[in-house]
């Protein structure tokens, strides 16, 4: 199942943004970047800034300045691990970590995400896996992801060891009543109107 199938099956076609990314972030994830004072604290505490092409503070500054969807080509949001040190350190309480998630989402929606970055492919493979069976079968995920791991054929050792220890298995779990990829649609699992407890 390809990534395109996953995204179209979740009814989110690719689109072009008609407003600034900052406005989309506010709408989609409730993050407001306007208060940013450009203090740089988020960049300073970010543990993976060394692997980013644009530091978090600069990204937020550009968003505040009205950046359009061309800001979504950066790899920075994908390297972000959502550790929330940025949000914790922001003196004006901008949820920078949530903004990063929003940027990932928008980059994917507008097809601006760096296609050659293994992280992007990893997330696609992960969601494909969940769409199929509702649970994660690690070996299956690794198989989907194999092209991003250079030389995987020549390094079977780690996987063999994990198989031997029972940390990986050939059989994956699956949900009994899994409806397939459509379970990832918005509203697919919303409670019925007549359900009493309505959890």
């Amino acid at each position, binding site marked *: 199942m390809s990534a395109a199938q*996953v*995204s179209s099956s*979740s009814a*989110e076609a690719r689109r072009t943004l008609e407003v600034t990314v900052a406005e989309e972030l506010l709408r*989609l994830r409730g993050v407001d970047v306007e208060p940013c004072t450009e203090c740089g604290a988020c960049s300073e505490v970010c*543990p*993976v800034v*060394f*692997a980013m092409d644009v530091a978090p503070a600069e990204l937020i500054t550009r968003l505040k300045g009205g950046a359009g969807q061309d800001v979504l080509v950066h790899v920075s949001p*994908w*390297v972000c*691990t*959502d*550790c*929330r*040190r940025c*949000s914790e350190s922001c003196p004006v309480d901008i*949820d920078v970590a*949530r903004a990063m*998630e929003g940027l*990932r*989402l928008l980059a*994917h*929606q507008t097809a601006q995400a760096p296609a050659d970055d*293994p*992280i992007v*492919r*990893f*997330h*696609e493979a*992960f*969601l494909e896996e*969940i769409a199929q069976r*509702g*649970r*994660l079968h690690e070996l299956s995920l*690794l198989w989907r*992801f194999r092209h*991003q791991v250079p030389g995987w054929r020549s390094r079977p050792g*780690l996987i063999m*060891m*994990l198989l031997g*220890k*029972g*940390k990986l298995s050939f059989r994956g779990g699956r*949900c*009994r*009543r899994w409806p397939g990829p459509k*379970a*990832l*649609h*918005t*509203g*697919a*699992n*919303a*409670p019925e109107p007549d359900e009493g*407890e*309505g*959890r």
Partner: protein
Amino acid sequence: MAEALDVELVELADWNCCGGVSAGALSQGALEALGQRNLKQVPADAPELLCPCPHCYTSFARTLASAGETDAGPSALRLRSILDVFASEEVLARLLSKRVEPLTDLRMVGYYGCKLSRPDPEVASHRGEGVPSEAAGINAGALERVIEACGATPVEWSAGGDCCGSALGVARVEVAEELLGRIYQSALDAEAEAIVTVCPLCHLNLDLRQYQVSQRLGRGVDIPVFFLTELMAVALGVEESEDWLERHVTSPLPLFMRFIEAQEGREYWGEEGPPGEAADEKAPVAAPTAEEPRTDGPEEDRHSRC
């Protein structure tokens, strides 16, 4: 292990994956849809939902928040993190009273990871005593209480809330190794002998790559990593726990051997050789303080548990 502590757990029927990091990244609705399917399967009379993985805990909280649930109504579901349940005062008191193998003098550091040390805003209404408070700080939280209750010595260090790399451990290994290197360096600086974690992904990352990171750091890293409930099971003497110890990539067996040697002032194998050979008469071992009578046979039986 939960049974040993009188904690009743019922597995959520036909649960599905919360979506991890990937759902939020690639789909506007998948995170909520996956969470809603899980919520539909929670029995109406379930008092609480334990989420052993901090990320799942967060995903559930976000699903509940977006569905408009608050902690005001009686039908609201209370989420519990693994620390909330297993590091509560009540459970720790039971652990103390049933403890069989206090891990005396073992220097351990508590690794909370990201989600429980800097929770997402949606978690706020569910947050229990498990999450370290800002006032008390990382080194004085629930994990340290658990370490003490197991008889070990909690040691202060700087990396208790540092990021393990999360999915980068698979997707961008070199970045994860850098992060792991910083964590191990902090543990080495603190002279920690073991790490205890509360997140399955953190556990995987910390356990899996010590050899590779040793090469990067230029010094050996061999610090066994325990999951919270695993450590408690060892302290309680739960029988299956010895099987789990063999599944670690960074084996805790040498640590336990050293620990037993230090406790008993002798070589682990000694002249008798490894267990399984003829059980000779042995002098009684200086048993750790335990309220329950030892029902094991000669020393070999006890050692083979490790």
